């Protein structure tokens, strides 16, 4: 039985004189009070900020891909920022194919009760590759895997970047890309055929078995299945 934890209170860094949080009302489309972190990033990382906007009350900072990991690390560590909570990692592709793909990090600072959106623009034709923030936030694990699965964006530094929602050998592509049709690339019977070709009893992916030291002791049947590269359907 563990000892009791001391509660970590959101808003603790604001002090007792701070105004209580209220429901935002009458938010303008553009403009309005910006999150002070946007200014702080521009000061700390000169030249890394491409653009900073306030859209519907939310501050969005578009930064350089090369420095985004450092910026997020600084946002996490710096005592005046303390963005300790990662809400989301996702990507946006626009219908207008000239526009770049945006990779979006939504960060919250619980002690300061702030919300910030950090973006990186990946120009069309560039490799879809951004640094992973798994070393800063463990919660980024599955969020980045899903982004890879749906968009094909590689997160360098992620310990285990595999498909998460589709099965590992999914051949149709990256579903949330705009050039991926809604109903998929293959015909329904072909999709069903590919899905049914997986053997649910083959059970374990190569990744899982590579970590088990007892490969030699596996039954011959299973070793044969692995050797022939049989699909596990996950």
């Amino acid at each position: 039985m563990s000892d009791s934890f001391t509660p970590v209170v959101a808003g603790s860094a604001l002090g007792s004189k701070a105004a209580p949080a209220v429901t935002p009302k009458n938010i303008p489309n553009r403009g309005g009070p910006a999150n002070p972190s946007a200014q702080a990033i521009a000061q700390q990382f000169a030249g890394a900020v491409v653009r900073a906007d306030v859209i519907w009350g939310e501050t969005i900072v578009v930064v350089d891909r090369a420095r985004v990991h450092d910026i997020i690390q600084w946002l996490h560590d710096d005592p005046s920022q303390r963005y300790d909570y990662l809400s989301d990692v996702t990507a946006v592709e626009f219908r207008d194919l000239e526009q770049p793909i945006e990779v979006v990090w939504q960060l919250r600072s619980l002690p300061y009760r702030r919300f910030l959106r950090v973006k990186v623009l990946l120009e069309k034709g560039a490799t879809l590759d951004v640094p992973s923030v798994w070393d800063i936030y463990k919660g980024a694990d599955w969020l980045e895997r899903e982004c890879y699965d749906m968009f094909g964006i590689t997160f360098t530094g992620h310990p285990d970047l595999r498909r998460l929602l589709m099965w590992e050998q999914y051949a149709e592509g990256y579903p949330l890309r705009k050039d991926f049709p809604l109903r998929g690339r293959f015909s329904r019977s072909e999709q069903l055929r590919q899905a049914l070709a997986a053997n649910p009893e083959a059970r374990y992916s190569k990744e899982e078995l590579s970590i088990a030291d007892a490969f030699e002791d596996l039954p011959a049947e299973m070793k044969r299945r692995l050797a022939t590269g049989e699909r596990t359907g996950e």
Partner: protein
Amino acid sequence: MGLSPRPEPTFKELSGNEPWITTKLDQFVNWGRKNSLWPMPFGTACCAIEFMATAASDYDLARFGMERQAFSPRQADLLICAGRVPFKLAPVLRRIWQQMPQPKWCISMGACASSGGMFDNYAVVQGIDSIIPVDVYVPGCPPRPEGLLYGILMLQKKIEHERSGDKTLRQEMEPDPTTQLYIPPAVIDEVSEPFGNSVHQTRSGL
């Protein structure tokens, strides 16, 4: 194509040629079977919650003999597929069906299990009847508990009219060994085609 041909029923129409003892025996066996179906809820999504509500005290499945819900397919006779089935889950559903011993029946509960429902996209099987043979389709999104109960009563009626002389009833449908499909691909494509309004909903933007 390699598919096992759909067997022709060997059963003769009930025209007085059936021996009395066989019909009585059939009635007795069917009465026993229909009143003691052990459902296996293959519950995936929202319909599973309505199934749980049907099994709970207000709508009570136990009064139909379905008190004991089997979660192991080996011990079940009724597979209730409640919820949407994506392609990743399709081989699992096929394997669960194959693991069930005869006699077995299947209820496809909800719009998504019956036809893909509102999920006409890359990820969802457009009706589980392309994977496993279905006896009763219960429409609804999700079907009300009364709807599911009506479907179960329809299945009971169907079981009531089974005849032991009809050998085709208990034959296991074998899929084509190369493609694992037991319906020709052209038929699957045809029934999965969007129709009505959803034909126009492939436009993104405006």
